[in-house]
């Protein structure tokens, strides 16, 4: 079922917010305001957006090391993520996590993860919590094509399957794992082909086409929510930037990158689609970008205005603050 025009525009808007957030964060990274590990999601926006469009605010998602997009798509507070990247006390994790650990529990974003494949167990566990409580929340577990080779993929999906948990395993197959082409590290041509090992449905979808993603996502989420159990979904996508800043990218052809950037940009694809159907006018398009730009600018302002955490913060949050908790 095709999303309503307003819903599509909302997706379009969210993709722009992700894109502009990251472009700005990348600039800030170059300036030295953002330190640490930093992995850009640009090019893959349709995946996070296509899935999160169908999630409720009390549903859960579990991210990866490349999770700015997941955070924004799930409705996380963007200015607090920027402050997090700046390492400030106004950061969503009070500056303690940084890019690889962004999380916003107020909207069910249970955290990025510095451990590739570290999210399979926790995502499955969040889904188990829903099942035990008898609520109808759904958990979406995002992971990379590289993460698929971790043992945790196998262990957790098997359990998700035998217990029929409300969880969707979403492989963001951007075709590279750090500097290595995915095809060298598996003999399987599609991640979907691994679903039979767990006796669950598998799907593969064009991850640049947010409509396609949205459709597959909607079906899988509905199924999970109504007791139909897990689905394994591959979204074929591409990261436009290097694995992390300074990546020389000698492992892939410039033409390949160029092709994806120009022909397969999920934002441009949706834009063309909307414009062709006259669901988006030039003005509205400009307004969407302008609003996103303003939002990102104010996120930077928020981050800059926030102080670095005081030294005492080094030792807090290791354990619950007993005084505060009681």
């Amino acid at each position, binding site marked *: 079922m095709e999303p309503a025009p307003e819903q599509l525009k909302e997706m379009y808007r969210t993709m722009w917010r992700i894109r502009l957030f990251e472009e700005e964060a990348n600039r800030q990274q170059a300036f030295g305001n953002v330190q640490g590990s930093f992995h850009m999601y640009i090019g893959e926006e349709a995946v996070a957006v296509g899935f999160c469009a169908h999630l409720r605010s009390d549903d859960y998602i579990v991210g990866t090391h490349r999770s700015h997009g997941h955070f924004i798509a799930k409705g996380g507070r963007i200015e607090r993520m920027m402050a997090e990247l700046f390492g400030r006390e106004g950061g969503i994790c009070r500056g303690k996590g940084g890019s690889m650990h962004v*999380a916003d529990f107020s909207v069910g974003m249970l*955290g990025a993860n510095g451990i590739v494949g570290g999210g399979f167990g*926790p995502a499955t566990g969040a889904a188990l*919590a829903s099942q*035990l409580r008898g609520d109808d929340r759904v958990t979406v577990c995002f992971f990379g094509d590289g993460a698929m080779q971790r043992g945790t993929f196998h262990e*957790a999906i098997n359990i998700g399957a035998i*217990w029929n948990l409300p969880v969707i395993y979403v492989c963001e197959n951007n075709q590279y794992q750090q500097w290595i082409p995915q095809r060298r590290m598996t003999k399987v041509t599609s991640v979907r082909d691994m679903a039979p090992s767990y006796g669950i449905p598998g799907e593969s979808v064009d991850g640049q086409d947010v409509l396609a993603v949205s459709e597959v996502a909607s079906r899988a989420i509905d199924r999970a929510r109504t007791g139909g159990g897990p689905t394994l979904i591959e979204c074929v996508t591409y990261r436009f930037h290097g694995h992390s800043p300074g990546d020389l990218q000698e492992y892939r052809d410039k033409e390949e990158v160029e092709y994806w950037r120009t022909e397969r940009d999920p934002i441009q694809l949706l834009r063309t689609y909307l414009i062709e159907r006259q669901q988006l006018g030039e003005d509205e398009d400009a307004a969407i970008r302008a609003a996103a730009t303003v939002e990102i600018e104010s996120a930077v302002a928020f981050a800059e205005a926030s102080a670095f955490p005081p030294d005492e913060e080094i030792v807090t949050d290791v354990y619950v603050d007993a005084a505060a908790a009681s």
Partner: protein
Amino acid sequence: MRTMTFRDALNEAIHEEMARDDRVFLIGEDIATHGGNLAVTKGIPEAFPDRIRETPISEAAIVGIAVGAALAGMRPVAEVMYIDFVTIAMDEVVNQAAKMRYMTGGQASVPMVLRLPCGLARYSAAQHCQALESWFMHVPGLHVVVPSTPRDAKGLFPTAVREPDPVLFLEYKRIYSLEGEVPEAVEPIPLGAADIKREGEDVTVVAVGPMVSKALEAAVLLEDEGIDIEVVDPRSLSPLDVDTLVASARRTGRAIICAEDALMAGCTAEIACAVSERCFTDLAAPVKRLAALDVPVPYSPPLADKVVPSVEQVVQTVKDVMDEG
């Protein structure tokens, strides 16, 4: 007062916590069959059929799932069949459970208990007999609890379940059958509260887990020789109640630290250091460590029986310390 085994006391505590709070559930291998691998979860499947989950042989997932369920508001009590297999789930314990609160700036809470049967038993050799408390002491964000008596098991388990941060609950297999007095109602015992299991004047013997009853046996033998030892049980290793240990060592002027993990970089090293640092001018003799040999646990029964410290070794070490000053 009624007496019961460590195993039964723990089983009772599990029953009570599950009755008290329906967010508590059990997850692990073979826990709902035959009362569980080491017969600790007897009766739970009948009493709480919906809150006990038998898993495949997937230790990383067991712990990872517990972390996720805890993040989502449940109170998982996970079991790894033998502590030796927690090696498979160290990422989940160390990088996920332990660090989540910190990495999220306090947003996340991981209120889970990880039950870890440990130590020697039944000559099951190098991969089924380890004691690994010092690894977990070294990881900020974890609590490490080592009950030594049925009563402490009964009192520490509810504390572990109610704790908002992850607790590793170490169960020395050889004391499952230990009998002891357990009141009908036991108050939860706070973490970080050492317990003086026997008062004495001459030497402080800090004893962890199964070393507690050995130290108490040694005390009786030493009494005959006119030596009066104080036996202090830290009960939790993280947090560690250094104040109580130090106060005791200051009073007696001598301290021995006994545990069943391997000597090198073991829990006895941390405890001995903590005491030494603060009692430099109070001690008549250096703090001594008594720990397992630095070897994998051998199968051959006569060898295996010599790996961890015996009552006789406690007695001898106390005498040595008395001789030294």
